[in-house]
């Protein structure tokens, strides 16, 4: 998906400030959520090494120090109701992840494939990292497979994707990707476009002009989504994504373009 030599140019700082929060790959892997009160139990083959409460620090009062069944141990602690999540982590499992992931130079994997591989290593072993509640297996409804499949269905010839989020007379986000053969080759922003192509704001007209402009200057667009910040936030965070967009379009808060199937 990510071309190892991708080009990222003409990035307008406003767009980049808005989307920066998506660049932490750990958030797509880990169970711990921001602000969550968690208990972390580190053990080595069943022997507890350290217990840390994310609010109060090291805990010495939690027993037993021997874990026979990590899942049951985590469940028992979780049921005490003190923590929003209990993590029971085998140190040997973390060592295995590092060892396996770094066994070869991994040059054949793109970076996204490599991080997905880590995700599989982290959660692929039932008792290695136990989280109660369990990791949901997706991030706000998004999965790697879903995105990878979607990118793979785009035409193999160069094609563009665009996202515009409009508020208070300006584009908070104006993102353009150029893809080819399932790889993102170029990342840029509306700054790289002719200003006239986006001057009409969040309208159907912008969609039409932008599609034409992208086709002429970058690559024929496969998908364009223009919407309000609230629609964008809901689309990212809620699991019923299609419904959110359909409803927003009826209210004039979202417009999209989809290239017809050939």
């Amino acid at each position, binding site marked *: 998906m*990510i071309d*190892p030599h991708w080009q990222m140019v003409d*990035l307008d700082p406003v767009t980049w400030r808005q989307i920066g929060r998506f*660049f932490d790959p*750990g958030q797509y892997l880990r169970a711990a959520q921001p602000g969550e009160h968690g208990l972390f139990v580190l053990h080595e083959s069943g022997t507890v090494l350290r217990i*840390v409460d994310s609010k109060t620090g*090291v805990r010495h009062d939690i027993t037993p120090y021997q874990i026979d069944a990590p899942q049951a141990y985590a469940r028992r602690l979780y049921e005490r109701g003190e923590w929003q999540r209990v993590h029971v982590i085998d140190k040997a499992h*973390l060592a295995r992840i590092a060892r396996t992931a770094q066994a070869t*130079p991994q040059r054949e994997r793109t*970076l996204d494939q490599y991080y997905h591989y880590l995700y599989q290593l982290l959660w692929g072993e039932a008792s290695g990292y136990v989280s109660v509640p369990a990791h949901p297996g997706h991030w706000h409804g998004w999965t790697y497979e879903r995105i990878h499949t979607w990118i793979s269905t785009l035409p193999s010839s160069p094609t563009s994707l665009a996202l515009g989020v409009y508020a208070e007379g300006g584009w908070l986000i104006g993102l353009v990707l150029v893809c080819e053969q399932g790889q993102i080759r170029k990342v840029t922003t509306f700054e790289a476009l002719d200003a006239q192509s986006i001057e009409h704001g969040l309208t159907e007209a912008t969609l039409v002009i932008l599609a034409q402009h992208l086709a002429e200057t970058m690559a024929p667009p496969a998908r364009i989504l223009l919407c309000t910040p609230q629609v964008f936030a809901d689309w990212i965070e809620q699991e019923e994504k299609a419904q959110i967009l359909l409803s927003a379009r009826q209210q004039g808060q979202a417009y999209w373009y989809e290239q017809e199937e050939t």
Partner: protein
Amino acid sequence: MVVQVTETGLSLAGQEIPVYSGSIHYWRLERDRWSQILDCVQGLGFGMIETYIPWAVHEITPGSFDWGTLDARKDVEAFLCLCEERGLRLLVRPGPLINAELTDFGFPAWVLLDPAVQARTAQGTLHLNTAWGFHPPHQFPVPSYASEAFYTYIDEWFAAVCPILARHLAPAGCIVGVQSDNETCYLFHDRAYATDYSEASLALYRTFLRQRYHSIEELNRVYQHVYGAFDDVEPPRDCEVQQRADMARHVDWVAYKEYHIRQAVVRIAHMLREHGLQGVPIFHDVAFQFRTPLDIARMEQEPALDWVGMNLYRNKESYRGAVQSIRYLAGTTRLPFVPEFGCGIWSHHPVTPTPDEQEFITLLALMYGLKALNFYMLVERDRWQGCPITRHGTFRPAYAAFYKQLLSFAQRYQLWSMQRKPEVLVLLNFDLGRYAALASSLHFAHVDLFGLPRALFQVDLDLDLRWDIAREADDRRYDNWLGTAMQRLEKRQIDYNIADTHVDLSRLSRYPLVVVPTVDFMDAADQQRLLAYAEQGGQLVLGPGLPYLDPALSPCEVLQKVVAEPGGTAVGAGYIWWVSQEQVPAIVDALASPSTCWCDDLQVLLVQQTNRGHTLLFVANPTPLRRETVIHFLGTQRLQRVWGEACVLSGEERIVVDLEPYTVQIWEMFA
């Protein structure tokens, strides 16, 4: 040396050259835009720029180089000539490591994929650059800086690039400084037991042990072990300390990593000299660390390195870290220098700074004594945004305005010559930093991605020591001895610098008062230096403990020989004050001279700088709220605002100022 490093910048034939520079990546910019871009650079007021010379970009296949024949953007000599035509000075950074957000960080792929070059983790695997942190757009095996094969490749690169650079050295040419490597530190995987356990690194480790102990018998005595030869000694691969006797081996491994980094940077500096880069200073940039495995004080003591700086990328919320870094540079280094001062940000960073934020952090750094800086990047390019100049050679007005104003202001006040005069030096205890490093675990690749709390990485050691070492070793805490001392200085609005216990005696002697946290152990040479400082007339405040051991926990009585009990002890012309944490505020109050200028609001920061009859008062509001505060001083003062909207205030012993959130005001003071 044709170009000299001074305390305020560089000097060439007696002429002062301020280091107010900005980065440009010529190979990423269209050749026909270079002139227009340099017009913009000079239009902002810059007289110096900096560029990397990227190895992999120029060496396109092994032994085959493109210097502009195939791709005009790679004509580095044309770029150097263009700078010379315009009278621009230049800092160059030919690597070998550059990062620069390049795929493979600027290393040729065939170098990285040579097994003889690759570093190894404690588990015996490759070390991929993604192991600690997020490094798009592709993973690669990290090279070992102990590998002779690696240095052979580097030598071939330097043999190609250095003759070009040598033709452009000052005084005839534009190049006034050269950097040896870049942020050398295991590509950010800097934890003690992470890497490098390659055969080459282990051989170097054993050389280090030989230099340290001279004989295996002496090592065996200290380690309380029976090794037949140095080659039998294995380093720890995790924290394996069970008893006091285990400490020496762990401390040595941590110290070896400092030596490894220093040795690599020095070796590369020598290679640059051997390839003809003479007459200009060689510097190095530390990424951000000022604790082990980086040892900036000792790095600067290496004759091969003329000066060492530390990079700084901070947002407004993390301003405390910026202040601490600059205080450390001011307290430790020859020329407080930030070789990469955030100007815009890399594309995978979560927070692209706004113009206001860039202004706030830059002025704050200058306020605390930054003398030399290179804005990285001055001109946008692939994988970087938020700069004053676009890659097309146009201004980004919202960002450019600040830099134009700053360069004009710096010139007007000769800002690099303005002096802060803190009378207190706070020392970080280097041995406590080593202890924190060795008493930790989970140094596996990718653990940083899993959102685990910091405390999970620590290991509690039961070594039957008198003081709580883990608590005192944590320099992020406010509730230990060091935290109490710093808080008291800040509460009393007493300006101070920071260094560590490896700083030399001449630097200690600049301060009437030195404050240092001490516990059961401290290196004998460091104790000796502190003692000498007191004997020469300094006031040394230490605590909560008094060292009676060395870091390997063998008996070591240096300070203990002269200090018998808590309280003050006259030593030569000075004093040593051994105080508990509870006594720290009182002793600071008693020994530190009160500030002659202070304000009611302790959230507001004040610093005065003076030079040639000018006194500037920097006033910063590092909070998200607007603040109004009273500034107190002695006698009558008139303040003329010289940064921002013109304004004059005057008063008898007090003046009220109003500060917007996250802003710095600069006032010239007239008594």
